[in-house]
Each structure stands twice: as C-alpha cells, then as structure tokens.
C-alpha cells in the first residue's frame, strides 16, 4: 500500500514536471533544427538559426537596448526603493502606513494599465516615445519591488551600528551610504537582479512606450508575425538562458547570504 502511494506520488511529480518543461524543451530542441520549420521531424543539429540571430542587426540592437534599459532602470529603481525603505524604517514620519501603501501600489496594477496611463500622459505632455520612456515605465514597476525587499531587510540590529557611526561624526547621508548600504548589499544586489530580470522579460510597457528603438521582447513579438520559425526559437532560447543565468546567480550567490544572516 505504502509503495503504491509512493509510486502514485512519483508519477504525479513526473507528470507535472513534464508539463512544466514540455514547452521549454520543445523551444530549445527545435532551435537546433536545420530545416525551415520548428516542427517534427527533428533534423539537425545545426547552429544556422543562432548565426541568423547574431547576424540580424535588428535583434542584436534590441538585445543591447534591453540590457541598457534593464540595467539603468533597475539601478534607479533600487536607489529609489532603498532611500524610501531607509526613510520609513529609520525616521518617524506621519502617515507611514499610507506612504508604504502608495509606494507599493503599482504592484497590484496590471502592466497594461500602467503602460496605457504613461502613454496617455506622455502624449499629452508632448514627450515622444523612446527607450527613455520605456525605462521610466520599468522604474515604476520595479521600485515597489525593490522597496518591499529592502524594507523587509531593514532590521533593528543595524540601528546600533548606525548610531555608533553617527557618534563618530558621520552625518545622515554618510551613515546611509557608508554604513547601511554596505550592510544591506546582498539584499540590494538581489533586488537589482530581480528588477533586471523583470525588465528584461517585460513586453507590454516596452511595446506601448517605445517607437523606433525596441527592446528584445518587442522585437521577438514582431518576429512572431512570420509564424513558426526556428529563428524565433533560437532568440527565445537565448533570452531564456540569460534569465536563468541571472536567477541562478541570485540563488547561489545572493539569497544564501541573505538567508544565512
């Protein structure tokens, strides 16, 4: 009976894992297709579609744009999230609960609505769409995330060290920059990479707020109009690989440290 249960549970586990990995495996497998369609039968392996991706300047430009938007917007989001978390954790301000709710509010709103709101606003203000406006959108979605992570890490045990620094003559800005920030560095790095991952994968805001220069997900979207194509598999696999590397990096290097403390 017990063995039967274990067998059933293992079977269930295997089935769900198969469901979770089916599309990923098909995506990656057929990116090595040598024929013109990413459908069975599988032939190859060949790297021709990866070559096609790397020699397509639209895609490589989009890749650089994505990296640019992701890194700068995440840095800004981290900074805004950090100073807000520091202020709310260390100073007695009126309406703390309301301020926290305001800063985290974008987390509960669909990206589509945030994007549309910014689109309308930029239109009315006469701001033309560019990578800059996409970056603004990504800061809006990532700041609450960075804030929430860093606020939860601002423990009381750091207060004494900060007080010591202050007694030794550091002013408030110096305390924040030279004492609090280094103590929270693993959390800051985690927040940064999480933001980068979200920005790197984000489509709808980038689609609504960009015009001539596109990010990678938007460029992949326009590739989709040509139907199923191993080139899309290749670029999709590359995008997936980058996300995975970032997530595993966070897992191995950063989160362990955060948890251990």
């Amino acid at each position, binding site marked *: 009976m017990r063995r039967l249960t274990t067998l059933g*549970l293992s079977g269930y586990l295997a089935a769900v894992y198969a469901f979770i990995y089916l599309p*990923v495996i098909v995506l990656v497998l057929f990116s090595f297709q040598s024929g013109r369609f990413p459908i069975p039968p599988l032939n190859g392996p060949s790297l021709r579609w990866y070559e096609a991706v790397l020699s397509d300047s639209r895609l490589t430009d989009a890749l650089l744009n994505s990296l640019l938007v992701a890194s700068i917007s995440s840095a800004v989001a981290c900074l805004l999230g950090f*100073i807000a978390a520091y202020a*709310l954790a*260390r100073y007695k301000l009126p309406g703390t609960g309301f301020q926290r709710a305001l800063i985290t509010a974008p987390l509960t709103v*669909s990206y589509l609505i945030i994007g549309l709101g910014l689109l309308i606003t930029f239109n009315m203000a006469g701001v033309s769409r560019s990578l800059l406006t996409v970056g603004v959108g990504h800061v809006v979605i990532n700041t609450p995330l960075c804030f929430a992570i860093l606020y939860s890490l601002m423990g009381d045990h750091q207060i004494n060290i900060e007080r010591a620094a202050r007694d030794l003559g550091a002013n408030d800005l110096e305390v924040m920059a030279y004492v609090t920030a280094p103590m929270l560095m693993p959390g800051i790095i985690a927040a940064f990479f999480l933001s980068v991952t979200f920005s790197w994968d984000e489509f709808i805001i980038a689609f609504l707020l960009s015009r001539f220069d596109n990010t990678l997900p938007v460029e992949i979207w326009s590739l*989709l109009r040509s139907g199923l194509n191993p080139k899309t598999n290749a670029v*999709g696999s590359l*995008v997936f690989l980058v996300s995975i590397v970032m997530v595993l990096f966070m897992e191995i290097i950063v989160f362990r440290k955060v948890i251990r403390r």
Partner: protein
Amino acid sequence: MMDAARRETVKGWSFIAPTLLWTVAFFVVPFAIMAVMSLWKRIGGKIVQTWSLDNYVAFFGKSHLLKAMLNSLEVTVLVTLISILLAYPLAWIIAERVPQRWQRLALILAILPFWTSYVVRSYAWLLVLARNGVINQALLGIGIIDEPLELASTRTATVIGFVHFFVMLLTLTIYANLVQLGPNYRRAAADLGANGLQVFWYVLLPLTLPGIMVGAFLTFVLCIGDYITPQILGGNNELLLPQVIMLQIGRRADLPTAAALSILLMAVVTLAYVLCARWLRLERA
C-alpha cells in the same frame, strides 16, 4: 531654531521625497489623467473633452465589450482553479515527501521556466499545440487520432498557457506556507487518530488557505491583465479584455474607450482584492 525632533522629521522627508515624487508623477498622475480621459470622447478622429459617462454606458450597451469582460472573468477563474488543483499536490509532495536535502533543488526545478519571458513562453506553447506541432504529431504517430486536433487559437490553448505559468507561481506560495507550518500540526493530528485524508481536510487545508488565497489573488491580477498569452495562443476568435483594450489603442486610436475599459479592469481587480483581504481578515479573527 528648530528642535531636534523636527529636524529629524525634515531629514526623513528629504530621504523619502524622491520616491514619493516619482510615484506621484509617473503612477498617480497618469492614473488620474487616464481616469479623466475615460470621461472624454473620440468623435471623428479627434478627442473631445466632454464630461460624460458615455464610454461606460457603451461598455454595457455594446455586447462585444461586455462579452470580452465575461470571457476574461471565465478564463481567469478557470485558470485559478485548475492551477490551485495542480499546484497544491506538487507543493505538498515537495514539502513533505521529498527528502530535506533535495527539497530546494526540487523547488528551483519546479519554478525555473517561470523566468522565461512571457512572449517566449507563449510562443513555445504555440509550437507544442500547433496543427503540425509536437502533440498532434505524437498523437497521429501513435494512432490515437486520424486528423490533427485544432488546439492552437482556442480558449483551451490560452488556458493551458496560463495554467503552465500559474502552477509555478502557486507552487511557490503554497510551498512557502507548508514549510512555515512545519510537520508538528500533522503529527499532532495523526497522534490524535486522524487518518491521512482527515489530516489534510481538517488541519492542513485550513492552515494553508492563506497561502492559497495570496497565490490565487496574484494569479487573478496577473491573469486578467495579460495581453500576450491570449493574443498568441487564443487568436482572434474570442477576445479577452486586454486584447480589446489593445485594439482600441492600436487600430482604432480610441484612447478614451481604452481608458474606460482599463478603469473597469482596475475596478474588477480592486473588488477581488477587497474580497480576498476581507476573507483573510475574517479567517484570522
């Protein structure tokens, strides 16, 4: 001359000011402008600054708009339910049956594809479900079917694509809840004579309901606002609300209607949030 307490408050404000200003400028103000615009109208290619509820009246009058909202609600509720039913056993097996040292690996493996870009993930499902895709070819090869099934461009495809994503999300939230709970409740119940099913129904399920609800709410918000998955997998046969909103923005350049539909979408999400929060508070009390 300011006293010390007041000076501290001023310093605090100067630290938080940039973030508050940013949130107001790029989140609150755009939202307010969108709300105002939803009261305007697009007449003959121009946006007229009227003050009327016409866009909202039109929503309830035009059957295709209302239908899109109902489609979205149906799909979202269905996706949430299926995802919970699939994710709970998975989270439970990982938390309770997988040996301790393998748990973290099992969990990471279970949610790794969560980090695929959603455009890429939907495309990958299209590959699997296409008329000449992997599933059809496999079924034809085995001889279960004679004709390829129409899987892509259906509501089923949309639901499968969504469930794939949210199973991973819910596994994470439910697993966190189960681990936090620890094995003691289960042991105590078992010592008092409860069998496996009773332990689950009277002890585990009630104690993990908060985790399920948090996950379900996240699923609801992310699912009902997503444009990509239904657009790539569901096709144009049966539109969901985000697809209709994007149609207004793109092809019709009717921003007031798009704004009104977005406000309605927000209203539904807010309602879901209020219900969830209230339920959780009642549960805790």
